[in-house]
């Protein structure tokens, strides 16, 4: 009996001690971790909006630029990041989140469109668990650059705004290069980006136009 009680007390004290230490470390670093995540998202938003940051911009500089040039607005449950020109008046682009199931796990991205929502300006994927060197290449410039200038329009039936096709010549203007060796990821990106663009055009954009 005494032995059992000792075991329980021992485990209780040990757990209490380590939980306290881990909590202390967590609390101590909480702010830094949150800033990291916030700054990471802001960097992505600035990048797709085409607002330049110099190469070694610190967290503080990112936060300041974001504050000055970007205004988030809520439109029907969707957050739109409105990018402003240097003078702070003229709207240069809108950015919003896209995302869905990738091949291995969820993929998160950010798209920007011009002030008339007639073309895509840029796209970036920032969180995913695709295979490095294969599906993970959705983050590489050669892949994301293809989306710039893509015309946007509401599509009918099972047509899509863009298609990802095997790399090669003889493709239409809305047919982009898929990633060789990552057919699953390419298909997934094609599906959810098309879906989210379509949803934006049909639901959010109407409300933005009305003001």
């Amino acid at each position, binding site marked *: 009996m005494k*032995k059992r009680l*000792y*075991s329980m007390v*021992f*485990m209780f004290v*040990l*757990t209490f001690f*380590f*939980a306290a*230490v*881990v909590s202390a*470390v*967590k609390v101590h*670093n909480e702010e*830094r*971790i949150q800033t*990291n*995540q916030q700054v*990471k998202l802001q960097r992505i938003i600035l990048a797709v909006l085409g607002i330049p940051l110099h190469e070694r911009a610190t967290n503080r500089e990112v936060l300041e630029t974001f504050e000055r040039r970007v205004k988030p607005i809520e439109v029907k449950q969707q957050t739109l990041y409105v990018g402003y020109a240097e003078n702070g008046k003229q709207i240069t682009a809108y950015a919003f989140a896209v995302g869905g199931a990738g091949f291995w796990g969820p993929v998160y991205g950010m798209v920007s469109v011009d002030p008339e929502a007639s073309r895509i300006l840029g796209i970036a994927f920032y*969180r995913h*668990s695709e*295979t*490095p*060197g*294969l599906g993970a290449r959705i983050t590489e410039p050669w892949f994301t650059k293809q989306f710039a200038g893509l015309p946007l329009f509401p599509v009918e039936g099972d047509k899509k705004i863009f298609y990802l096709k095997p790399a090669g010549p003889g493709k239409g203007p809305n047919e982009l290069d898929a990633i060789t*060796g990552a057919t699953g990821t390419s298909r997934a990106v094609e599906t959810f980006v098309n879906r989210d663009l379509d949803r934006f055009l049909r639901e959010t954009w109407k409300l933005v136009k009305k003001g």
Partner: protein
Amino acid sequence: MPKPLSGSQIFLQGLWNDNPVLRQILGICSTLAVTNLLVNTLVMNAGLIFTVCMSNLTVSILRNYTPMRIRMMAQTLIIASYVIIVDIVIGAYLPDISEALGPYVGLIITNCIVMGRCEAFARNNRPWPSFVDGLAMSLGYAAVLLIIAVIREPLGFGTLFGYRIMPEGFTPWTIMIMAPGAFFTLGLFAWFVRAKFPQTAEEKKQGH
């Protein structure tokens, strides 16, 4: 009671004679997962070295107070605490690498090397030798991972530490990026070492 091992003997055991990856075939999961980029491998190694050393030290300090029947529970708690600390610190200071390593930092908890050393060594030895044993074993693990990463990164990405080292026309070997690439690399490497430098009676008998 066998004579306690000296510091250099412990190191020889961990790095070579009893190398956790090559001889004991432990810690394979992370060996396959995080060796396609050297930077990730280095951070993973640092995390494991810290965890094994500190867990061994703590388990050893508490060895005379820990009731036999609940020692595994206590060890798991100790290991998990150190791993969570590593995970938080990497997330705070190296966010990009933290993302790249994904769940594998957290999975150090289940790395057999950590609990294996607590059970096999720390719980029967004094704190200092236990710490040294942890260091030796984790360095043995780290060395193998680095060797595999040095093979995989250039073949898979054409780079080393992110710098391009392969000639312009080099076609990256996709398989080297994926887990099977590590599987073959590790298999060939372990085979080479065991055939060339046999340790067990069985290995010696088979010859080479």
